[in-house]
């Protein structure tokens, strides 16, 4: 999975109430959810999101609620990749299981806002303006789900009949 995209840099502890406020949870289609992504940050931030297919964050991205909308609203916006120093557990699972590429890597301090980056998610290689950077790719079972486009699109093993 090679993803080439302009970067939107965000800080630490970005929570799901900011990413997708709870009063819109009954909006079910990702394309419609996209309208409410990062609403508390205001319209100028929201317009940056639509032109930056990669988010690069600090620690603990996606903390708080289990709402899957926090992942699917970003996908509805056309976000292809989120890189963070660490993710909250449920956001991380939701991303992998919905096919949104996530990379756990300390890029935030190495790149500029709006920089163009190229990331090979499976091989663990990021090409930045300042040179190439290696990171540990996701564990094989998770990479497998991500490469199939999410949990529901991943074939179930037939052996064992379970």
């Amino acid at each position, binding site marked *: 999975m090679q993803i080439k995209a302009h970067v939107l840099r965000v800080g*630490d*502890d970005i*929570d799901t*109430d*900011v990413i997708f*406020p*709870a*009063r819109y*949870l*009954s909006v*079910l289609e990702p394309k419609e959810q996209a309208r409410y992504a990062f*609403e*508390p940050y205001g319209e100028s931030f929201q317009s940056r999101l639509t032109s930056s297919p990669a988010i690069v964050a600090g*620690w*603990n991205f996606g*903390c*708080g*609620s*289990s*709402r*899957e909308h926090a*992942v699917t609203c970003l996908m509805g916006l056309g976000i292809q990749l989120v890189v963070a120093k*660490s*993710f*909250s*557990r*449920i956001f*991380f*699972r*939701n991303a992998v*299981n*919905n096919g949104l590429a996530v990379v756990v890597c300390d890029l935030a301090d190495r790149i500029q806002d709006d920089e163009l980056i190229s990331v090979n998610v499976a091989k663990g290689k990021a090409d930045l303006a300042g040179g190439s950077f290696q990171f540990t790719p996701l*564990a094989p*079972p998770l990479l497998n*789900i991500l490469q199939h486009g*999410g*949990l*529901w699109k991943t074939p*179930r093993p037939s052996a064992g009949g*379970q």
Partner: protein
Amino acid sequence: MGQTSAEKIMSRIAGRTVSAGDFIEGCPDFTFSLDDGIGLVDRYFRLYGINKVRYPERIAVFFDHYAPADTPLHANIHGIGRVLCRRFGIDKLFEVGDGISHQVSIESGLVRPGQFVTNTDSHTITLGAVGAAGCGIGVAEMAYLWAHGVLWFQVPTALRVVINGRLTAGVYAKDLALTIVQRLSARGAIYQSIEYSGSVFDSLSISERMTLCNLGVEMGGKFAIAPIDAVTRAYYAHFSDQSVDDSTNADSDAHYAAHYQFDTAAVVPMVSSPHSVDNVAPVTDLPNTEIHQAFLGTCTNGRLDDLQAAAAVLKGKRIASGVRFIVTPASREVYKAAIETGALATLVDAGCVITTPGCGACAGIHQGVLAEGEACIASSSRNFLGRMGNKDARVFLGSPATVAASALTGRITDPRTILNAT
């Protein structure tokens, strides 16, 4: 080498001995689905043509986030949930007014020590109060569990947190939990099992354990697990259940990624300030902080002892002019018990308004959304930007007694100043 509680519980689910870091596939003992996600379960079923549920007996559905429905859209989603339950033979549907999933599943005895439970709600970690491993999952995963009866999980590493002592007067489980969040931070336990022990548990009720475990997710925890002990056994004895065993308590030689120790003697009333839960300080560090709304309820602190703690502060008094105080019992059982003990009458006499049992105002969906520029003192667990429905409002978090004391004065107030004066 010994095992952590998480390793023991997940080994049973996996059907083999597993250790921290391992990936497993398995089916939780229960999986709970809530109204704020059930519309998406239906969407996944339509998208992938699913017309059968693998283990309907392991599923329960709760209407707690939109109860009662406040918009046609939310009402329709309740309708979708009722149809799904009928269609797939799911007999555990907890309706509008029954209460919050975490509360109902413990107070009814449905969830038992040593079980593994998933739910489309991050505060499922609260179930650790009875020695169960509870964690939140997403809705794609929920629909997948309904359909296939299995899901991947990773066995977490664990933190050992030892708490010794006894809570002093005017200091509550919430203050202890906030003290721990302050020390470990919002990212201090990401993807980890927080395993509690220590002498404090000798005097910590199941309700207080729920408050303690509930805040585990605000440090990033996957599980927060209290020891299974005499308090746990006494609790299940009420359900005529004498079979509680403590075999899923961690072994003494289990491996932990880190150890923390707390002494209750140093714990004082604490408040978390906007806009992150780990922004914690003693109540006395926030003098003259005006509030407009007080909110008592939620899976964190909406139980009988919480309502009683607030009633003890408010007895014979009136809340400050210009302050509204919203009380949302965590369940119908809590509501009923608060009527029977007289706590509810005390709260109403003091000027509180009581709403339908459920999640209430916590997530900013309904029943107490804030206006621009307002501040709320809440017994809930989150104060993120926009959390209670308005990005230009501020949410402070404290114990039920701190919430009540602050409603009395109109400013964030140490409850001991009220309790000691009466």
